[in-house]
């Protein structure tokens, strides 16, 4: 379980994240959605311990990220929005490397690498150097290295962005598999249909503040729209009005 409590991060005058709190329960998929520049990536990076918040705290399975960053990171699997892989290494070598950094060794390491290769359906590419891999193939490596240590909590930053239909479907199936395995999954996305289809809970963030959260059904009911996209536009628009970003009539 991931527990985020009153996170604040500002850069000079800009409050990138402003008092964000939510919980990502085990066995559920929580979607973090918001317009560009809303603070999604900053929030995910604070949860991953890459950025120190000025206020607030993050607990990963009860471990405070600020107090015990290394332990907290070992409980997390993080897939960033950067699709970088090592082109001269094979996926298997890359998984092995990240497994070692997570402290795995010997048979346990090899076993986990093999499991991830099977789970992510990457056996056909596992022993080829990653140079020239497609976006979807790289995405599998990135997801694989986030999972190699079998973390209970998973952060995914826009995991389906730029992928083709088949790769998007595979990624979504993988997320559902994680959920079935009882993991806590937090992911950010721009795709409302994806959020609506996958998420048990949605957190809408605008200008660094949470403007709404709840199940997709609850958000639809609250705004009176029959789809999440319209609900999001209404809720995000209201958030922008409150933050002074747009004038009230624009919201209407």
């Amino acid at each position: 379980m991931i527990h985020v409590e009153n996170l604040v991060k500002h850069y000079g005058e800009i409050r990138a994240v402003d008092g964000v709190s939510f919980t990502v329960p085990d066995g559920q998929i929580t979607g973090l959605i918001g317009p560009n520049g809303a603070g999604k990536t900053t929030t995910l990076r604070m949860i991953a311990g890459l950025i120190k918040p000025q206020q607030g705290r993050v607990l990963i399975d009860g471990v405070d990220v600020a107090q015990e960053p290394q332990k907290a990171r070992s409980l997390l699997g993080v897939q960033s929005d950067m699709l970088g892989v090592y082109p001269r290494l094979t996926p298997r070598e890359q998984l092995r490397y990240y497994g070692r950094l997570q402290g795995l060794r010997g048979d346990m390491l090899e076993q986990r690498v093999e499991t991830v290769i099977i789970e992510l359906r990457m056996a056909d590419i596992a022993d080829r150097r990653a140079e020239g891999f497609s976006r979807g193939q790289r995405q599998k490596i990135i997801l694989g290295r986030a999972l190699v240590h079998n973390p209970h909590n998973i952060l995914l930053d826009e995991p389906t962005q730029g992928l083709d239909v088949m790769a998007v479907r595979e990624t979504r199936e993988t997320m559902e598999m994680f959920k079935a395995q009882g993991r806590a999954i937090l992911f950010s996305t721009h795709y409302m249909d994806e959020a609506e289809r996958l998420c048990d809970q949605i957190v809408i963030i605008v200008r660094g503040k949470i403007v709404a959260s709840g199940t997709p059904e609850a958000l639809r009911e609250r705004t009176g729209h029959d789809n999440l996209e319209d609900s999001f536009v209404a809720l995000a628009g209201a958030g922008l009005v409150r933050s002074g970003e747009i004038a009230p009539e624009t919201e209407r």
Partner: protein
Amino acid sequence: MFYRIRSIWQKELLDNLRDRRAVIQSLLFAIGFGIFYAVFNPLISASFIERAAATQYIPTQGIEYADPTFLSLLEVYDIVLEAYEGDLTGDIQRGVLPVGLMIPENFVESLADDEPASLTLYVNPSATGFFSPNFSGERLELAINEFNNQAAARRLAEVNLDPDLLSPIRLNQESLMTPEQQAGLFASFSLPLIVTILIAQSGVFIAIDVTAGEKERGTLEALLVTPASDTEVLVGKLAAVFTFAIVPVTLTLLSFYFATFFLPESVQAVTLPFNVILVSLLVGIPLTLVFNVIVLILAVRQNTFKDAQSAASLATFLALFIGFLVAFRPPEADLAYLIPLYGPVAVISRTTLSVPLPPTAIPYAILGSVIGVVLALRIALRLFNRERLLYTSGS
């Protein structure tokens, strides 16, 4: 901790060994500098040997006015004056000739009248370059001194004066330096410079790859979300850079020693004593580590490979600066060998020159490098800050 450092080290080695550019760059250094030394060493030696042994021909105008005794004496010194018909000063100025002598019409008369007879020697060393067989003014000067002594003695004898009366002190200077040693003198200046630049450059490619390259590829964030601490990541990467760097440094230094072995016997070349190579390795290896950390510092905050390459070129300038500083300002106090970068380069320079080193010089130079590594590593760790490294964008 060591498991993670070792894992990062192994990964970086494997990754970079598969990078043709990194491997070629490393090997090129060793092979390139070896060939450079093998080719230029005999050329430089030959230049000094030829200069010392060859007859000196001096294009001369007014040769018909020269005193025959003077010409005979020049021949003893293996100097031959050759009549020159063209524009002597103009040709020297334009670099057509490196040297020329002008004998005035009244040369013989002046000598006969016991007046100073003047000769004008025009020189332009740029005409042949520094290392080409060139004119040695020293030999002509010796010949003229000898002629002066003989003439003065003759004149004093004519007035019944002992010539020794006018020379309370006579300095007999005789250079015992062999041409090979002369070439070694050049090596003492050039070798430390080459070695320092080599050390500064070795590992640059991999240092950039493991820092800015990681960022450019988009793999840095994934690495930083692992439980590996900043120190583990940095030390692991530094270990890989160092491993990659010492191979060309060692091979190159050894190639300086072995290069001359492969030359034909007819070719004269200066073989560096093996102790020079050993001392260079002894102080050069810790020095390599200092430069590796400096390059990491320069590259760690850069976003792209190209930016990092530009930043890392500062290390080469630093090496050049230190090399020249040592050449012109060698250490005067033993403690100066403790100064990171300066101390080890000074040891290499002094050893090449066969100048006895203070017994503390080598330990101090190594200790200075260790201190340098610790200090530089602290700076690198400050710069290797997760948040600052990553926060180039965020939504």
